[in-house]
């Protein structure tokens, strides 16, 4: 390897090279498995009891729009990361702020959705599965929102530029993951009861 | 009469069509396994002795490092042979699985097995309700006929297992598992709960008495009878039993109708007591009634603080339940 090639090596956290970004990939793997096992639990019960296990056809009135809200937030995070890569620090902070706001709105609507349910955590295994699964997801949204908040703060402090915004990329990866997981939960709890 | 531990629980010796197929497979795999271990041990030991250097560990680095060829053929040949042996075992396994999956003939009777912490309830099923009856911890079956078992549990997971007659089947809450077994020779086959089920998992034994169809029929008829009315010296014992024991135990034909403990209608005819923890003798029975917590700590039968005379009366009454 030539000395010249070595001298061109980036130093510190740049792009997707830092360990942290790869570390987040492992988090996504293991947390993805966690949700896979939660959904396994749901389907296990469905296989045992069939449709009668589900106390009521789940309403899409809140969950539908809420899914759109969460997907929108992902779009804003994506936009924030793109802006960071182009050096547009204002757009980057704005994107993060809107995504964070949408995340909080999602959580608020989820609370309303929870209130609407005629069953409770302890009223049978469907209720348990529903509240524990969506609860796990909400906990992940809370963690993601805290990440976005921290990254927004660092963004406003001017820590990031075109090259150095690894924390933003890492938080974005996590946020997209949390959204993707929501889609699988939404499909499982809200869509499959209407299929077949 | 053989003791409850005869034959023992060794399952390399089997006493029924099903268990024999399984024990043959187990033997085959066991012999193959021993052969494999012997071959590998010999290969390793021979390699070590024949190829060793005389260097001490500290001088290891004085032996030059080389890369002789030919090592890979060990892997090719070794894995090829292992795979052959494995596929042969798999085929035998598949054959045995198919052979023991269903009974060869229609079952002669169906016994419902219900597990409790820490005893066994057996319900002999029949289409005619007058022909059904219950017993505990000791099941009788006719020889030469498959018996269908429907197993379920009243509390935690247990596992029904009579090694000489066939494999285990777990008793899982909210499901009924079905299996079968068959004994070809008369005898008392011991079994034991095989799935850990709490404090007295160790003392949850089963006696399966296999007998000639005639003997079985006689036993069955006897079991169908309720307890006979007592007279004389046993009346006091019966009254005490009603007062102290009937909340948990049933004696058919009397007021005792408790469902928490084993049905005792014909307990005196059984070989063992306390889920075959003890042989059924006057001494053991007295000891058990006096202080069940000493013999099976943690079991659900309370120690009743009986006076010696009460204990004797109850014990005599229980012994009359033939």
């Amino acid at each position: 390897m030539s000395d010249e090639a070595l001298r061109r090596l980036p130093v510190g956290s740049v792009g997707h090279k830092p360990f942290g970004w790869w570390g987040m990939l492992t988090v996504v793997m293991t947390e993805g498995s966690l949700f896979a096992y939660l959904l396994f639990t749901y389907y296990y019960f469905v296989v045992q009891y069939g449709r009668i296990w589900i106390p009521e056809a789940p309403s899409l009135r809140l969950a539908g729009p809420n899914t759109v809200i969460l997907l929108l937030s992902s779009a804003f995070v994506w936009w924030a990361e793109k802006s960071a890569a182009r050096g547009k620090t204002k757009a980057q902070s704005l994107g993060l702020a809107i995504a964070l706001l949408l995340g909080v709105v999602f959580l608020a609507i989820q609370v309303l959705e929870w209130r609407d349910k005629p069953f409770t955590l302890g009223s049978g295994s469907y209720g348990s599965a529903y509240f524990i699964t969506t609860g796990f997801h909400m906990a992940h949204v809370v963690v993601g929102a805290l990440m976005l908040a921290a990254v927004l703060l660092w963004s406003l402090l001017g820590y990031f530029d075109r090259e150095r915004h690894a924390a933003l990329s890492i938080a974005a990866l996590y946020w997209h993951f949390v959204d993707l997981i929501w889609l699988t939960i939404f499909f499982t709890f809200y869509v499959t009861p209407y299929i077949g | 009469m053989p003791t409850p531990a005869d034959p023992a629980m060794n399952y390399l010796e089997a006493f029924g069509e099903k268990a024999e197929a399984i024990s043959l497979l187990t033997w085959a795999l066991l012999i193959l396994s021993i052969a494999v271990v012997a071959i590998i041990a010999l290969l390793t030991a021979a390699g070590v002795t024949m190829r060793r250097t005389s260097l001490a560990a500290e001088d290891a680095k004085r032996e030059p490092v080389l890369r002789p060829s030919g090592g890979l053929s060990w892997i090719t040949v070794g894995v090829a042979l292992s795979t052959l042996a494995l596929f042969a075992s798999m085929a035998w396994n598949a054959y045995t699985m198919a052979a023991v999956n269903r009974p060869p003939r229609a079952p002669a009777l169906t016994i419902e097995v219900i597990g409790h912490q820490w005893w066994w309830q057996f319900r002999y099923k029949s289409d005619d309700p007058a022909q059904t009856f219950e017993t505990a911890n000791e099941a009788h079956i006719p020889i030469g006929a498959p018996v269908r078992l429907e197993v379920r549990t009243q509390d935690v997971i247990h596992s029904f297992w009579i090694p000489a007659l066939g494999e285990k089947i777990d008793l899982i809450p909210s499901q009924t598992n079905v299996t079968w077994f068959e004994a070809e020779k008369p005898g008392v086959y011991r079994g034991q709960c095989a799935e850990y089920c709490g404090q007295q998992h160790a003392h949850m034994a089963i006696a399966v008495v296999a007998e000639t169809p005639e003997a079985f029929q006689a036993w069955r008829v006897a079991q169908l009878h309720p307890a006979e009315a007592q007279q004389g010296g046993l009346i006091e014992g019966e009254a005490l039993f009603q007062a102290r024991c009937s909340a948990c135990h049933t004696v058919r034909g009397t007021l005792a109708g408790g469902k928490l403990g084993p049905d005792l209608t014909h307990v005196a005819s059984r070989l063992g007591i306390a889920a075959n923890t003890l042989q059924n003798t006057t001494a053991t029975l007295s000891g058990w009634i006096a202080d069940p917590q000493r013999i099976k700590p943690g079991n659900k039968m309370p120690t009743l603080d009986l006076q010696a005379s009460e204990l004797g009366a109850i014990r005599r009454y229980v012994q009359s339940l033939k």
Partner: protein
Amino acid sequence: MAVADSDRSLELQQSGAPARERLARIWEGEAGLRGWLSTVDHKEYGKRYIATAFIFLILGGLEALVMRVQLAGPNKTLLTPEQYNQLFSMHGLTMIFLYAQPVLSGFSVYLFPLLLGARDMAFPRLNAFSYWIYLFSGLFIYAGFVLGYGPNDGWFNYPPYASMRYNPGPNMDFYAIGMILFGVSSTAGAANFVVTFLRARAPGMSINRVPILTWGTVTASFGILFSVPAVSLAFFLLWTDRQFGTDFFNSGQGQPLLWQHLFWIFAHPWVYVVVLPAMGIVSDALPIFCRRPLVGYTVVVLATVATMVMGFGVWLHHMFATGIPYLALSFFSAASFVITIPSAVAVFAWIATIWTGRPVLSTAFLFFAGFIVMFTLGGVSGVMTAAAPADQQLTDTYFVVAHIHYVLIGINVLAVMGGLYVWFPKMTGRLLDERLGRWNFWTVFLGFNIAFLPMHWTGLAGMPRRIYTYPEGLGWTAVNVVTTIGAFILAAGVLLLLVNMYVSRRHGAAAGPDPWGGPTLEWATTSPPPTYNFAVIPAVASRHPLWEGSLDESGERSSLQRGMILDDGKEMLTTTALDAEPDAIQKMPPDTLAPLLAALAATALGAAALLHAWIGATIFTLLLFAALLVWLWPQRAMGQISEQAHV
């Protein structure tokens, strides 16, 4: 200090004394207690992992000895049933969770960067965190045991016996919460191994030149990432069943069998988690004493990976007696046969290495040779349990107890002990005594076989597992006495190892950098290695950088003395995932208390949850977040902040 790329002088340099002094100044942490608590040096945590795991091994061993006394004859009353049940539960979970995996983590945490030619793990602080929380999770479960509330439903913890109805004490809650903490530890460790393996190898160490130990560990780590969530979730759901009235595993609408699925989806891969790195130890260290490279590197690596992948598809063979449908039974039975093929590859690779090499009969080598035979024995008894009808007889008897001990002692403990004889000199600079070593090996080997070989017979004679006593007249007494005697001999063997380590740590012969003439990079640095591991970043040209002189395979030579110094702060080289081309220079974090505080906060959160102290739980959650925020706050020295930023 400026970090702009153009300021760097990255010429390849010789590793001279001045460079070493500069690096020592940069990498060495504080002395004293604070330094001990805040260090992030992987070598320190590697040793702590091993030491802690050995303490748990001793505890688990003592528990076993007490049980063996109880079982040395029929109808013994040394222990009450409840005491026995807590002891066998603690013994199982201690050995399987608190010893077997952490001890291998210890080897890997210590050796990973050294084998890969790196200066530390990818995440040194996470490394510290996963150690601390491992320690605390063990203490948490043992706290329950000491208070009289030890888990009493076995390590497998099947509901409904584990549910509130049948088990109202806090025993299960100690276990459940402790296991969730332990899961955090093993997951964090696994993430660290994966990223270190993929991104922190020495330049030139392409993926086909990596030592097998790191393959074993990284494969096990992927196994952990995918399987541990199943058990963490299962324990969490069990806890909510017990405390909040959810219904997952209760016997109402809940499904007790769901627990078994979740548990074995985790626990079967876990078997490979606790053996693959140990097999890696043997695959890397056996060839040193055979004075030749391992036969069949590529197939052994493929077999390692294949074992793990298939390991996710056989969990149902732990449930053959639960009444599963015939079709599923056939499939999982067949799959369980097939999974032994990769293990055969490894066995024949080791034997071929012995036969085509010139074995030096060191103590380590004896352990590895013994390991091969014990591995085979544990393997074939596993095959017997793969046959569903046979397994329905064998399962839940002492046959399976014998099997699991051949797997865990034969494949884990023997490899670990051999590994200690190999790398103890690297860790301490002193050789373990070889004479004592012989005694150590033979006592362990004989004691182990005296204890566990007859146990196969105990099982075939029909003795069920987990019974606190047994009656006379079933033919179980004599074998149980033999096993008890063997157990004490085995314990004496373990004691000899401890004595050897204690004595040799001070008085052993000086090891020098490379006492055995090994092939891999850890032997290129001093014993013990400096904090920064390597003065220059080694550039690797083959699988055996230190054997290139004798093997002369390609003509290319690894460069160990001349290379990048990277002394502009704590720095490590990142390389690409497959080819290990230099990709970036990472700035490494300084020593910090944040991981310890985060682990303390997480454990305190667990304790608060156990006690339903919700205010405390809230406070500890906030403290945990605070510790993480301090931990993750971007730092200029780590090149995480824009150079234009005015901070």
